[in-house]
């Protein structure tokens, strides 16, 4: 006959074994339930395509000087322009009194990457696309962007300078994730 007690003070062996089996079963059940439910939780994560579209990464290192690259983001044309040293120096000294919507150089570029301007490429007076992304396109008197529809002119920092437009080009939310790439959104 099996002795079900080790000694007078200990838990009977049968109950101990039963308790162990109950814990084992519950642990197995918990692992099984977690395995089944984890995909449900994982499925609520955004899909890769939406995530990439919502926060696209743009390589800017290959943009030539004095040229802008256009990317579409959230249905808006985003212009990323690499400034020349001369443009930086010229626009740093512009008097705020001459600007319809005063904004300093520091407020228009990222401090650590002053050579890049990122703006929404829609005229703020009449919302149409701007010209001037490449030096061969008409850029107006300020070597920036020009709206061929209403004649609004912007400087290379995207500030309104002449024409019916009274507001600067908006700056979208973006982050330099390294020297060569920015992430929008």
């Amino acid at each position, binding site marked *: 006959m099996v002795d079900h007690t080790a000694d007078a003070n200990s838990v009977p062996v049968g109950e101990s074994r039963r308790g162990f089996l*109950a814990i084992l*079963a519950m642990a197995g059940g918990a692992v*099984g339930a977690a395995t*089944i*439910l*984890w*995909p*449900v939780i994982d*499925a609520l994560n955004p*899909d890769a395509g939406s995530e990439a579209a919502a926060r696209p990464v743009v390589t800017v290192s290959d943009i030539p000087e004095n040229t802008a690259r256009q990317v579409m983001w959230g249905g808006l044309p985003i212009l990323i322009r690499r400034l020349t040293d001369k443009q930086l120096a010229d626009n740093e000294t512009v008097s705020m009194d001459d600007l319809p919507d005063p904004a300093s150089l520091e407020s228009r570029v990222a401090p650590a990457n002053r050579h890049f301007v990122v703006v929404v490429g829609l005229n703020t007076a009449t919302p149409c696309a701007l010209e001037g992304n490449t030096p061969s396109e008409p850029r107006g008197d300020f070597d920036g962007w020009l709206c061929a529809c209403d004649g609004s002119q912007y400087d290379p920092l995207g500030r309104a300078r002449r024409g019916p437009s009274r507001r600067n080009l908006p700056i979208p939310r973006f982050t330099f994730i390294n020297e060569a790439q920015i992430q929008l959104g």
Partner: protein
Amino acid sequence: MTTETKQGGPRAATPCLAGLCAGLMRRDLAPGAPWLSTLPVLLGAVLALLLASGMALAVFYDPRAAQASLRFIALEVPAGWIMRGYHVTGAGLGFVLLYVHLFRMLLTRGYRGPAAAGWMLWVTLLAALLLAGWLGFALNGGLGGYWSLIDAISASLALSGPAGGVAMWFFGGAPGDGTLARLLVFHAVLGVAAAGLLWLACAATRQARPAPAGRMVAFWPVYAAQAFAALALLALVFALLMCFAPHWGQGAQSQLPASSLAVPAAVSYPWYLTPLAGLTALFPGAGGHALAVIAAAAALYALPWLDRSGGGAPGGLYRALTWLLGLDVLGLGLSAVCPLAAGLQILLFVWFFIHFLVLTPAVTAMEAA
């Protein structure tokens, strides 16, 4: 350690948990219940999985591009193919469990006396799940679902009077861009309602259970272990079906894109809708379909009162006729998949009602005598 600390803990802090634990430990169950008595537990687990996967699918589902969005879910969403697998296989297995449980209730006369309320709740649950299943078939955006929905809406809107009003309210008028969005809401509401109905049906069945005589056992650990083992077996079958037969019983037209120009000769339904489709096939139009469904539901609801036995175990003849009814329902389902001879189709339909309205009262009265 003080006595207060010993008596504290989660049970003391949450009276509900303490009550649940006490209920699980209460020795008020007869020992030796068959394995098939775990079917409601399994159905509850499948319904929970359907609700969870349905929630995940609803996040990405687009009613205006139903099948394209389901393809997107399967290919692009993290674990999206598993969610579709959970939902499709869960629906199929849920109906297997429900049909087997209802058949077992019929076979054991689990609808009599105080259990009548529980039986009616089970029949209501069947009706709710059949409607939810049909809506899911339509929401799939396949060719079969599309034409089943178009036929149902067109025929329903031709109804006059209160029935036409109800159809107009349910479908939101003629089929259009918003129809599937509307039906998606009803599909989700029916899913949640089914979970509530299951809980009510189980509670009603438990209340009607006669007090066991002799030695009694608690749910924990005896029946908990049984339910656990049954759930493990269900999970195994579920995984095998989901991975090796993901389109099992779905109907060939479910995989074809919906098209207003491709009209199928006959809609192929998922297997769990085929008995209902077989029952309604003889009557043309929405009015005829509705009449057949209402008549079948009425026969099932009235069963506790059609049974004339005073009590006791079901006799051999009654059991044989119940098995015959099971075959009849299978035949009705088969008739919706492949056309049968008209005479056989009528016989299957008529036998369903003869069983409940004639044979059940006669045989149960005879066996009671």
